[in-house]
């Protein structure tokens, strides 16, 4: 959110927490976020077979946060979407 919309840190945290349906404190909690990231399939830190990785995860994040991500747009262009 800092990169796409120039949000300052507190605003960025509020925005993302709102989109994910968690509190800002939960956003900063690695235990909460590890489970949430797997549920939302937006990429996890450990190598889990079948979990979204790389550009897959990035595309899901772009949708979830309603932000434009350059490489995701490039993928859509390549696929004619």
């Amino acid at each position: 959110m800092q990169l796409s919309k120039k949000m300052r840190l507190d605003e960025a945290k509020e925005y993302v927490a709102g989109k994910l349906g968690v509190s800002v404190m939960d956003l900063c909690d690695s235990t909460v976020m590890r489970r949430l990231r797997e549920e939302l399939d937006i990429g996890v830190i450990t190598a889990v077979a079948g979990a979204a990785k790389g550009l897959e995860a990035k595309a899901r994040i772009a949708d979830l946060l309603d932000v434009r991500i350059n490489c995701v747009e490039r993928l859509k262009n390549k696929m004619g979407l």
Partner: protein
Amino acid sequence: MAEIQTRMGDGYTVSMTPEEVREDLVAGSADAARRGKIPVLEPDELDYLFEMFASPTRIWGVERGREAVLSKDGSTNSLYSAQLSSGVGLPLSREQAFRTFERAFGFDTMEIGHTDYSVKPSKPIVVLEQNHVEAVLHTTIIPVFYGFMPNLGLYYQPDGPFPNPSDLLPKGQIAEARAATEEALEVCYNDLVWMTEKMDEVGADGINYDTTASTGDGEFLATLRAVEWAAKNTHLAVEVGMAAECVLGFHGQLEYNGKRLAGMWPHQQMEVVQEAGGHIFGPVVNTNSRKSTPWNLARAITFVKACTKDAKIPIHPNVGMGVGGVPMFEIPPIDVVTRCSAAMVMIGKADGL
């Protein structure tokens, strides 16, 4: 209270009395305030810094809920390059190093950059650079930046075609030095724009103009114009990291939107980067190796606070070897690196590092 163990700006341990630590905190902040004509730190902020330095713990951190993000400069050189880039010489490709930073080190952004991390040497191998950016875009989740230093110095003789102001100024050839700067910065600007466009073409998430103004106000102007171009013509996030706390006036008369660039301090640099359309601004405050870390950190935070107070864009101060209060040493000691980092967020109100 017993003596406090902390560090000097060169990284060596020093024992200080509590009174000496407090004096250095006040003096460091006052030095920044005098130079930048900005406010000193508040009493409660000085109290926080004192408590932090007086604590015997090796590691210090932010409070839970105050975590900030990390953006990176220098690309993956830290892992595969040599001492010249503070690298540890691992036999890793850039793609492997990038994924290591994401997965093992938990970085929030990362860069691909040329081993010779300047815009001028990157140009001839742009296609290789684009391919490496594309490779990591497919396999990683964190934002992918392409980074380089504008490094106007490479455009001057003997490395480049233009007469060198560093040679001309001592001879009193001021007009000639200014002319050389004005010509060189145009070529540097064109190179910055060209490389930026190439990275936007392949879908990079951002561009990082690192160590901006290392060669003074001419380089700063070239970079600000490139930021303006990038903000208008690409979808890249534009990060500008500075080289030093004060812009050197090798030219002395260059302006951006009516503001003279020579002599600008971090809060003034932030304003013009923001005006140009930058997304993230990374101020630098240089460490004085003859002063204590409390002195250096209080000074650095005073400058950074003046940026974060009025900024409309995220501020990511440079906190590393020799900047942001951290000692100037090849392997900065973790006891003060963690303190400087946490204090930048807690007191400096940084949005990241």
